């Protein structure tokens, strides 16, 4: 067991997979000599050389498309979005090429690619650097979307993503890179399609992912003090949704609160709500509650930014309300 920061856990995942499979390579802006904007690839350039840790020009759509071509022809690229938001420039390559091409090509090509990097709302980074692309990309067929949230799951999930033969959009969170945890000394991977039960409980199911998981666990003390016993589930897989784990929980609690960082309109929670209502309608004692970010560009101002995303107090309040049938 060694205490490890999340960015180091991610690096270990990449390092181990690169050592094992020489078809795996990393590309992106400043991933090489600079070591990555969040130091996830630090030291890999020295270890694996300039071709396997490729410093690209600032040309997101083109280097993303290049990675698709490399994947089609047998390599296993890991694209780092310096900030995931920049990959809006590569929307076409991610949607049309990475996501849909296997289907369009009638199975001629597979595109084993990981598209990873820092996403989410940081600390006053302004609207453009506070994107939640998972919401935008969830409609693209053929993509798997994963969000890690701890040093432990970051490593296990990233290794699986690298080994997966499909394009995987892998979201890290800018504010979680320093999350610290003891990691096992042995090698492990985690399934990409399985939600993680963070806390078992019987009163209410809280569905969350990425950084909001930690807001939920922060709220937990007060929720427990208030006398409630919530079940907290980290979705991990944002597409496809692990409806099995989610269903099992709801059949037990009959109450659902979704806590997400993306905006409410067209967000992950919107899709989740629809799926729950369709598949588990009879199990619900009341409406599915959605705590999402405001439908606004994330403001720079710290107070406004705080108001934009869901805070632990709101989770406490929502639990209390739902338990008292006030929702």
């Amino acid at each position: 067991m060694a205490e490890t920061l999340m960015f180091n856990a991610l690096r270990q995942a990449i390092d181990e997979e690169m050592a094992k499979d020489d078809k795996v390579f990393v590309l992106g802006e400043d991933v090489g000599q600079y070591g990555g904007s969040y130091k996830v690839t630090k030291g890999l350039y020295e270890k694996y050389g300039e071709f396997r840790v490729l410093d690209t020009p600032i040309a997101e759509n083109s280097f993303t498309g290049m990675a698709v071509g490399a994947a089609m022809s047998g390599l296993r690229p890991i694209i780092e979005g310096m900030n995931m938001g920049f990959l809006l420039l590569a929307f076409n390559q991610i949607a049309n090429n990475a996501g849909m091409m296997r289907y369009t090509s009638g199975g001629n090509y597979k595109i084993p690619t990981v598209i990873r990097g820092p996403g989410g709302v940081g600390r006053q980074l302004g609207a453009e650097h506070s994107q939640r692309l998972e919401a935008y990309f969830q409609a693209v067929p053929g993509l798997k979307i994963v969000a890690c949230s701890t040093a432990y799951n970051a490593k296990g999930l990233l290794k699986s993503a690298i080994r997966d033969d499909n394009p995987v959009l892998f979201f890290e969170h800018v504010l979680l890179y320093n999350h610290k945890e003891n990691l096992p000394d042995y090698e492990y991977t985690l399934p990409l399609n399985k939600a993680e039960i963070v806390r078992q409980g019987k009163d209410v199911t809280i569905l969350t992912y990425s950084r909001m998981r930690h807001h939920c666990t922060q709220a937990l003390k007060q929720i427990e003090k208030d006398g409630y016993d919530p079940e907290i589930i980290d979705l991990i897989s944002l597409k496809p949704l692990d409806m099995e784990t989610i269903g099992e929980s709801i059949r037990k609690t009959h109450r659902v609160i979704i806590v997400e960082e993306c905006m409410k309109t067209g967000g992950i929670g919107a899709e989740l709500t629809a799926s729950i209502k369709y598949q588990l309608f009879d199990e619900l004692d009341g409406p599915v509650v959605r705590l999402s970010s405001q439908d606004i560009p994330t403001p720079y101002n710290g107070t406004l930014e705080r108001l934009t995303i869901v805070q632990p107090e709101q989770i406490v309040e929502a639990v209390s309300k739902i338990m008292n049938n006030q929702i």
Partner: protein
Amino acid sequence: MAEERTLPKFDYSTVKISKEESLIYYEDMVLGRLFEDKCAEMYYRGRMFGFVHLYNGQEAVSSGIVKSLRPDQDYVCSTYRDHVHALSSGVPAKEVMAELFGKVTGCSKGRGGSMHMFSEPHKLLGGYAFVAEGIPVATGTAYQSMYRKKALGEDFDQVTVCFFGDGASNNGQFFECLNMAALWKLPILYVVENNKWAIGMAHERATSQPEIYKKASVFNMEGYEVDGMDLLAVRDVAQKAIARARAGEGPTLIEALTYRFRGHSLADPDELRDPTEKEFWNARDPIKKFATYLTEHNIVSQSELDTIDKKVQQDIEEAVEFAEASPEPDKSELYRYIFAED
């Protein structure tokens, strides 16, 4: 109508081509031409759907370049105008036709259609429907080739050819990729098929520098213009660029001056282009030009060429029969091919 660019002169005295090789190039061009004519017929008869972009007039470019590659080894990347690039790459005519008919026997299993011909066995990277989006993908396979050689130490000299139009050359992906390919000396040929038009946008109205091949120079890349209606000239420039790429000397930008004999797609009434412009280019039909060269130089007789024409026509009829007789994709397979496992 802007004045026609002077087509670059080609020195025929350097040409060395065997009879066998000549027939391969000739047959490929005829196949491209007759296949597209058949597509027009089948489209108007309601057998194929969607946007169908034909290649008539540009055959010397596809044949001259692709037939100079190593079949099933070198990559070819196309656009929505992809039928003939697929044929030159060796995808059987019946598979291309069946794809156009939306049949499960098509090279993309009926999932792709006219603008999305793919064939991994033939190293056809695909037809890409968005203008310029194939350029990065092809740059990626070229990167892969370089990676095999330099990062993995394999003895590997695969080359990628990337086709696109004059319109695409004004898109940012073109410049971004030229930069990277030159920077990393990637084994790739960027082949601009300058047919003077991007749907209804005349080339000189869309670019500040109509001589596209000159754009290579700012990336420290080799750039050449070539008469795209002259198979031998295209073949010559292709062979040189391919040899350079295999030798690790980097990418080449080739601007082939050509013309499409039909509208942009079968849905285009083609009313904008000046008849005198069309006449100018029709008079330069690449198939006739090559046939004349072959017979005048006594490499092949006219009757041998006629035999090929007949054989190709027969192949195309068979392709149509094959496509007609082929089954539709099974409805139960609607969700197949979304992920790598199925």
